[in-house]
């Protein structure tokens, strides 16, 4: 950042803007002008947040800090006022999104501004002592109308999660942290509502903040939750509207997952077969791509007659060994009827393409199909 004093510091419009907003004279033109001013101010939010995390704060003195916190309060005030007015809310939202490409800023950033800013500044070591002291007073001691609000429960909940996290086993399920992250991701996506498609702009860069295995786990969990009849309890829209929104939320996540082949390939390697099978059961696009991927990997297996089994070829594309491939297909067949049939059909097709052999050791698809069907028979009549 080249400018030392971001323009929001210089803006003195705040009290005036409010006064004018309340005025009834020359409403039309005035309101448009005022709205423009408000939008202009709101556009400074990204800069404010960015500065609060940067080394630029080392020049801040207590009055500057106060001003920054007042701005945060003002943004919060805007959020509260416009929350129930959809048109104004959308206007603000669009303006925020117009910012840097890939910026996930949304209306909610306005709402949580005080907290976002306060905590970001707390963690920013560049903030000088005097300003920091002022911050601590305002943040934690509830002076000057700053709510201690959620910070005491925050510390309490953090201790609680440390105490209890170790106790639970969570066998075979994603940990509570992954679930929490997935939950927040879904909340954020749902806020965009039908415009979740626009999430594509910011979803990638945001997910890149996580290490890849974690990102996959979070997205998978989010997709699972979204796939359960249009989201869980915090889905506010009901009925048809809910369906469309749910669709676009899942759509955004799937796009991210599937658009890049390398990414999807890495994901399919990292996530367990059972999880992928669950996802494939819910999302048709994913099941198709997944089956294609498995077909690709399977084609790199060679039969070793001396050992009497299938082994990975030397090529780099051979990602899965026979056991793993078998397990993957097995998981798919334990899913819904639809998924099982789709999987079997795919295997049969591959087997046919290979020459439709009935004997083992010639086509990996023949062998796989045999094993998979054997498993199904056993499952149906377990006494045998």
């Amino acid at each position, binding site marked *: 950042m080249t400018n030392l004093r971001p323009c929001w510091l210089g803006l003195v419009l705040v009290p005036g803007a409010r006064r004018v907003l309340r005025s009834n004279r020359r409403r039309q033109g005035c309101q448009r002008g005022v709205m423009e001013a408000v939008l202009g101010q709101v556009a400074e939010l990204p800069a404010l947040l960015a500065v609060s995390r940067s080394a630029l704060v080392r020049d801040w003195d207590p009055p500057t800090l106060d001003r920054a916190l007042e701005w945060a309060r003002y943004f919060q005030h805007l959020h509260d006022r416009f929350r129930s007015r959809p048109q104004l809310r959308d206007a603000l939202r669009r303006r925020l999104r117009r910012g840097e490409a890939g910026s996930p800023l949304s209306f909610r950033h306005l709402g949580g501004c005080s907290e*976002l800013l306060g905590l970001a500044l707390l963690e920013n070591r560049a903030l000088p*002592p005097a300003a920091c002291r002022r911050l601590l007073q305002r943040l934690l001691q509830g002076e000057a109308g700053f709510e201690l609000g959620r910070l005491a429960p925050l510390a309490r*909940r953090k*201790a*609680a*999660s*440390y105490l209890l996290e170790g106790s*639970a086993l969570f066998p075979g399920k994603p940990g509570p942290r992954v*679930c*929490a992250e997935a939950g927040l991701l879904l909340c954020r996506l749902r806020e965009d509502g039908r415009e979740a498609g626009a999430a594509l702009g910011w979803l990638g860069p945001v997910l890149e903040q996580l290490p890849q295995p974690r990102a996959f786990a979070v997205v998978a969990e989010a997709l699972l939750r979204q796939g359960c009849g249009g989201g869980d309890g915090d889905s506010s829209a009901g009925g048809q509207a809910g369906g469309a929104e749910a669709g676009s939320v899942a759509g955004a996540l799937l796009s991210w997952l599937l658009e890049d082949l390398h990414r999807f390939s890495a994901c399919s390697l990292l996530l367990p077969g059972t999880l992928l099978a669950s996802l494939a059961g819910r999302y048709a696009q994913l099941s198709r791509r997944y089956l294609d991927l498995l077909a690709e990997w399977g084609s790199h297996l060679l039969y070793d007659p001396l050992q009497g089994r299938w082994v990975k070829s030397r090529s780099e594309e051979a990602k899965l060994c026979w056991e793993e491939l078998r397990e993957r297909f097995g998981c798919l067949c334990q899913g819904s009827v639809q998924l099982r049939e789709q999987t079997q059909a795919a295997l049969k097709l591959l087997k046919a393409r290979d020459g439709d052999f009935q004997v083992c050791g010639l086509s990996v698809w023949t062998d796989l199909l045999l094993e998979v069907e054997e498993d199904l028979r056993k499952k149906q009549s377990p006494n045998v």
Partner: protein
Amino acid sequence: MHCGMAQDTTVPKLNFKFWLDKAIEWGQATTLESQKDVCLHLPQLQEFLHQTYETLKHMNSIAAIQQFPLIGQLLGRLCWNPFVVGYDESQKTLMWCLCCLYSSEPQNPVELKANSWIRSLLCHLLSSSKWERIEAETSTFISALGYTSADYYCHLVENIVSSLVTELRENQFNELNIQERISVSRVNAVSLFCLPLITLPDLTPLLETLLLYHGGASKEILSSEFLEAVNDAVLKKKISLSESAIFSLWHRHLPSLESATLSLLDQLTSLQINSLEKVACVIKDSLLPQAASHPAIFRIVNEIFKNALLETDGAPEVMTIIQVFIQLFIQVQQNENKQHKFPLKAYFPHHHQPLVIALLRRPFELPSTHWLQHLKHISDTLKSIVEDTNVSSFADLYEIWFLVACFGEWLDIAAEQLMKAAVAPDALLWLLAFYYCPQNENQQRTQTMVESQAVYSRLMMLYNRTVLSFGDLQASVNNAADTEQCHTQCLITHLLTNFLLFSSGGHMIAQEFISHITETTDMSKEVCSLLIRTAYRIKHNGGENQRTVKLLNELLQKLAVEV
């Protein structure tokens, strides 16, 4: 500037050395012993921290560190103890103390270092990274989405709680699958971990699941410290749990039930009782009558009441409280449409069942014309138990007496009927005589019976006189009033008071006579209790004439003023 003053008064109170030693001993609370010890000290520690903050806020940071050199070490260690941070309001006070120690103009490297250390501690408490280490990954992701650590931990705790709840519930019904059984020690550990978090609303589902959890072991699985702490929070109305969870708590942890019962008694005896409505309200709120639907709970509460009565030498206020409790208990029993009600014997195992059944009938269930007969039945049954069977020990006698006393409504009605009925059988007077004088090895009861019979006859002669003077009444009861026997005096006072309330001539001199009674004898509490009970009974059952009601209210008002 005021440091000097503060120093003199507060330093002795703030025992940093003690708490620092404790904090070092606790470490990060990783062993069961240290965890239990922390839990034991949490309330005092919170109080200490609060006092510390109150002192610190008037000082600047340098003076604070000079005066309390150990404070840094102490706060640092406490911030890393999850039990301390998780408890009630301790985390607030810790953070405020840290703020006080932060220097806005650090003059030297030491102060700079202190500042930096304070910020680290605050980040440790408030940032989204894990407790054990600062990891950046989750933090940037979450803040990029527009959420803060506050949102994150909200979701996280919710997830952990629902996960644990699901696990515990599944294990409840999964008795056959032994491999997956959650070990007893784990559940015990979880309950202890929950102790500091009891008042955190997010935890309520977990608390309820734990309280309703039965692992099949015969010994109690949940930590007793936890159960005690939950009970404490419930009694102080700091949390609200479902009724079934509370009943389960009382059922499985005797000290909690005892504590709840005693707390109810304390609460009620400290009230200025001038109406039973308030008493009934408080008792109902306590949920004990509802809990007592379970026989085991009923029997224990009953025992506690029995002992309380003994300890207060049969104080009439306590007796009244017990009577109201029993009434409410019966009401609850009748209102509940439970599939399987427990048999009567479960509640009153040692008693003659026909007597119990007779006493349990509520007066309003019978037409008032049947009351005489019913009372005679009660009296006869009781007489046969007491006189014919071998009731030798005081303890046994007390048991029977207590049973009858609990259903005081019938006793009051007996006294009333003695006045109102055209011909009242002796049995009714016997019943009252038994109540006031259960023992008879030296013919005390017989004596009481004889003396009160005499007074009663004289009262009956005056009953229909429309005009009665104070002197007339005084003359009639004078001989009897001289008796030194307390029991007899009580019984006679009871009869007298009823006479004044219900007879035609009595109401004119009622005020005067009752004042006389309260001044010349020490029966004022008895009279007061009787009037309050009568008012309550009339209000709920009705059927009394206006004159009596008016008189009753006047008498009560006057007594309320005097008390």
